[in-house]
């Protein structure tokens, strides 16, 4: 249904549309980052497109491919009942120079979604009014959803307890022995109290 939109985009922007495809019924256009804002504005304002809602914005890390990141938005038109996916590709192998225009002026929801993409991938949205981390804490170094960020690498804000403080071996704090802590082993406690007396 939104094939028409793709054709219209190609007719209007020509070479700025790098490729289009309609896999699994989702119509997709990959566009030049420099035309990102212009194309998005067109899609929102053109009466035949009328994408009033930006459902989603996210980043994708395609490690080892340059440009490395994709910024993907999914647009939804309530009045026309069609949807489209718009993508652009930014950033070099090290994730440097990943910059694209911000869409906050078009859809309010872009505010948080772009902050999230910035937080997770380090993609910078120029002219975003308030670009700071949203899910991670400000002290966090690195971008967790990049494929080269190790999944288990934590950056604790408070120091973990040491063994002296805890008084028990730290990796074996919970008593996992066969007889300990069974719900019916509560008898042990009573017994111990009796023994002590």
């Amino acid at each position, binding site marked *: 249904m939104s094939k028409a939109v793709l054709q219209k985009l190609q007719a209007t922007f020509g070479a700025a549309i790098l490729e289009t495809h309609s896999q699994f019924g989702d119509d997709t256009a990959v566009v030049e980052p420099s035309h990102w804002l212009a194309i998005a504005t067109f899609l929102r304002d053109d009466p035949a497109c009328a994408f009033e809602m930006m459902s989603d914005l996210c980043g994708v890390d395609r490690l080892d491919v340059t440009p490395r990141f994709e910024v993907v938005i999914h647009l939804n038109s309530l009045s026309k009942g069609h949807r489209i996916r718009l993508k652009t590709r930014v950033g070099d192998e090290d994730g440097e120079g990943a910059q694209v225009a911000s869409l906050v002026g078009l859809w309010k929801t872009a505010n948080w979604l772009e902050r999230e993409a910035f937080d997770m991938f380090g993609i910078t949205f120029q002219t975003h009014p308030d670009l700071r981390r949203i899910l991670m804490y400000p002290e966090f170094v690195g971008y967790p959803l990049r494929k080269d960020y190790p999944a288990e690498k*934590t950056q604790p804000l408070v120091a973990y307890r040491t063994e002296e403080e805890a008084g028990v071996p730290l990796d074996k704090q919970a008593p996992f022995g066969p007889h300990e802590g069974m*719900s019916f082993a509560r008898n042990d406690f009573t017994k111990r109290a009796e023994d002590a007396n």
Partner: protein
Amino acid sequence: MNAPLKSVTLDGNQNGFATTKLDALLGWARKWSLFKYPFVTACCGMEFMALTSPRFDGTARFGAEAPRFSPRQSDLLWVVGTISQRQAPVLKRIYEQMMEPKWVLGFGTCASSGGFYDNYTTVAGIDKIIPCDVYVPGCPPRPEAVIDGLMLLQDKIATGDRTPRIVKPRFDPAQGHQEQLVQLRTKGVIDGGAK
């Protein structure tokens, strides 16, 4: 009530009588008047709601109903749900603000060990930050398990034991309890629910 209140006979030069007795009495009093601070963050909170509401009524029956949202007025910290690295300082601060004596109950696998979120943002168990008295595993634990945990904690309070304890299933299929399980299932919920 089977609190270990025992009269003890002492001979002349022993002077431990009063303290023993007072400790036991205090323990008994404390275990029936726990003021909880629910530190509810995640999915386990849904079970926590179920626990405190009519069907299970799992806290009022044990004198642990009244929630206090000020840490200074509470003595039992329920850590319900995943603790992320970002949340950790908050949890620690709240624990430190609580008055002695204080106890901590780790509700759910995430609070106990981090659960299956073994990644950059999750604290692998609250015991990395604060001491924990009773661990209730389960994702989320059934209210029955939590009630077991609460009773376990009461016993710990009564005896003054501070070693961490874990709640284990009463019927463990691996240990030959299948029969009880089958009985429970056939006579219990199914007909009861449909009536």
